[in-house]
C-alpha cells in the first residue's frame, strides 16, 4: 500500500468552500476599501493600500512559518513523513507569492508616502531578505536528486533560514527603521469605523486565499510526487499493454510469419523487454 494518498485532482469540498469564502471576503474588502472607506486625513487615497499590504505581509509570514514548522516535523524522527516535506514545499511557494505582493504594494505605498520606490527601511530590507532566502529554498528543492535526500536537504535549509530571521530582524532594526508600527494589535487601535472593518476583512480574505492556495499546491505536490515515483512504472505498463494490443490486431489482420510470432511477444514475462515489433502502420 502506498504511503502517499492518490488524489485524482487538486480540488475537493474543503477547497471549494475556502475558495468561495475567499472570493466573498475579498469582494467585501474591495467594496469597503474602494467605496465605503473615506480617504485618510493625512494620507488621502494612499491609505487604501492598508486593505492589501498588512494582510499580505501577515499571510507571507504565516506561510514561511508553516514551512519552517513542517521542516522541523520532517526532520524529527518521530514525526517524519513525506507529507511534511510536501507541505513545506507548498507553503514556501505560496509564501513567496505573498512576499512579492507585500514588497510590490509596500513599494507603491513608499512611492506615494516617502517619494521613493525603495528605501532601506528595516522591515522592507528584512522582507526582501526573506524573499531571497525562500527563492534559494525553492531553487534547492528543484535542484534534482532523489526524493529522500532532496527532502532532507530542503528541511535543513528551511530550519537554518528560520533561525537566521530573528538575527536579520535585529540587524536591520539596529541599522535603521522608518516603518510604521503596529496598527491593529494595540489596546487602542489607531484606525476606526470602516477602515477597521475593511482591514479586518482583508486579513480574513488573504488568510482564506492562503489556505485555498496552500491546499491546491499541496495536492499538486502530491501528484507530482506520485508521478515521480510511479510515473515510469505506469508508463511502462501502458506501453506493454499497447504493444500487446498492437500485436494482437496485427495478427488478426495479416496471418503472415511476422504476425504468427506476435503472440509470443505478448506473452513475454513481466520485467523482460517485449521483442521489437514490426511497424504495423
Amino acid at each position, binding site marked *: 500500500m502506498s504511503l502517499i494518498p492518490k488524489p485524482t485532482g487538486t480540488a475537493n469540498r474543503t477547497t471549494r468552500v475556502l475558495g468561495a469564502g475567499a472570493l466573498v471576503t475579498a469582494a467585501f474588502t474591495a467594496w469597503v476599501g474602494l467605496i465605503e472607506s473615506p480617504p485618510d486625513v493625512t494620507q488621502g487615497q494612499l491609505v487604501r493600500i492598508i486593505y492589501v499590504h498588512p494582510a499580505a505581509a501577515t499571510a507571507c509570514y504565516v506561510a514561511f512559518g508553516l514551512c519552517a514548522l513542517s521542516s522541523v516535523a520532517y*526532520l524529527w524522527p518521530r514525526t517524519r513523513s513525506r507529507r511534511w516535506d510536501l507541505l513545506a514545499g507548498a507553503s514556501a511557494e505560496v509564501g513567496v507569492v505573498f512576499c512579492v505582493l507585500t514588497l510590490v504594494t509596500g513599494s507603491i505605498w513608499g512611492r506615494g508616502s516617502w517619494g521613493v520606490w525603495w528605501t532601506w527601511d528595516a522591515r522592507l530590507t528584512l522582507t526582501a*531578505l526573506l524573499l*531571497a*532566502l525562500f*527563492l*534559494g529554498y525553492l*531553487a*534547492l528543492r528543484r*535542484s*534534482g*536528486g532523489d526524493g*529522500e*535526500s*532532496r527532502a*532532507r*536537504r530542503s528541511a*535543513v*535549509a528551511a*530550519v*537554518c*533560514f528560520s*533561525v*537566521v530571521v530573528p*538575527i*536579520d530582524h*535585529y*540587524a*536591520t532594526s*539596529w*541599522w535603521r527603521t522608518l516603518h510604521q508600527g503596529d496598527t491593529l494589535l494595540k489596546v487602542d487601535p489607531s484606525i476606526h469605523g470602516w477602515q477597521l472593518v475593511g482591514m479586518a476583512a482583508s486579513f480574513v480574505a488573504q488568510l482564506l486565499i492562503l489556505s485555498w492556495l496552500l491546499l491546491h499546491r499541496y495536492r499538486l505536490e502530491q501528484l507530482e510526487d506520485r508521478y515521480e515515483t510511479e510515473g515510469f512504472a505506469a508508463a511502462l505498463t501502458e506501453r506493454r499493454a499497447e504493444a500487446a494490443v498492437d500485436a494482437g490486431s496485427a495478427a488478426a489482420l495479416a496471418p503472415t510469419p511476422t504476425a504468427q510470432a506476435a503472440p509470443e511477444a505478448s506473452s513475454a514475462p513481466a520485467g523482460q523487454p517485449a521483442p521489437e515489433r514490426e511497424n504495423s502502420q
Partner: protein
Amino acid sequence: MWRDALAVAAKDLRIEARSRVTTNQVAPYAVLVLLLFGFAFDQNTQLLRQAAPGLFWVAVLFSSLLAVARSFALESADGARDGLRMWGLDPAGVFLGKAAAVAVQLFGLEILLGGGIVFLFGTDLRGWGLLVASTVAATIGLAASGTVYGMMAAGLRVRETLLPLLMLPVVAPVLLGATEAWRVALALTSDDGWRWFTLLGTFASIYCALGVLGFGALLEGA
C-alpha cells in the same frame, strides 16, 4: 569529534598548501575586487575611505564563496565524499574541520585585504580591540554558514549557481554587523560597536550549533 575535526582541517589545509589555489587564485581575485571598487568609485579617496569597511567585507564575502566552493570541490573527485562517510568520522567533526580550514584561509585573506584597504584606500586602521573581535566572530560565522550551505549544494548539478543564492542572503547580517562594527572601530560613526559584535557572535554560535547538529543529515543526503 575534536580529533576528527583536527584531522579534516589538517587534510584540507594540506591540500590547499600543495595545490596553492587560495594563494594563486582566490587571493589575487580578492585584491582585484578592491581595485575594481577603486575604479567604480572613480578614485574618490574620501568616498573610498568612508566606504572602506563595507567594501572590505564585500570582498571577503565574495572570496568566501570561492573558498567554500573549493572546500567541497575537494570532496567531489574520486568519491572522496563517500570516503568521508565510510571512514566513520563524526559528522560534527567533519563540519568543524572543514569550517576551521575555511576560516583559516579567510583569516589569511582578511590580512591581505586589510593591507589592501590601507594601501589602496588610505584607510587608517585603529580601534584594534573591536576590529579584531568583530573580524574573528564574522569570519567564524561566514565559515560555519558557508560550510553548511556548501554541503547542501555539494553533489548537485547546479551547485556553482546555487551556493551564492543560498549563502548570500543568509550572511547579510554578517556583512551588516561586521561593516558597522568596523565603522565604529575606524571612528567613521559613533554607534555602539560592541552590540554588533554580539550580533556577529550570536550568528556564529547559531551556525556552529546548526552545523554540529545537522551536518550528519546533510552528509547522508549528499
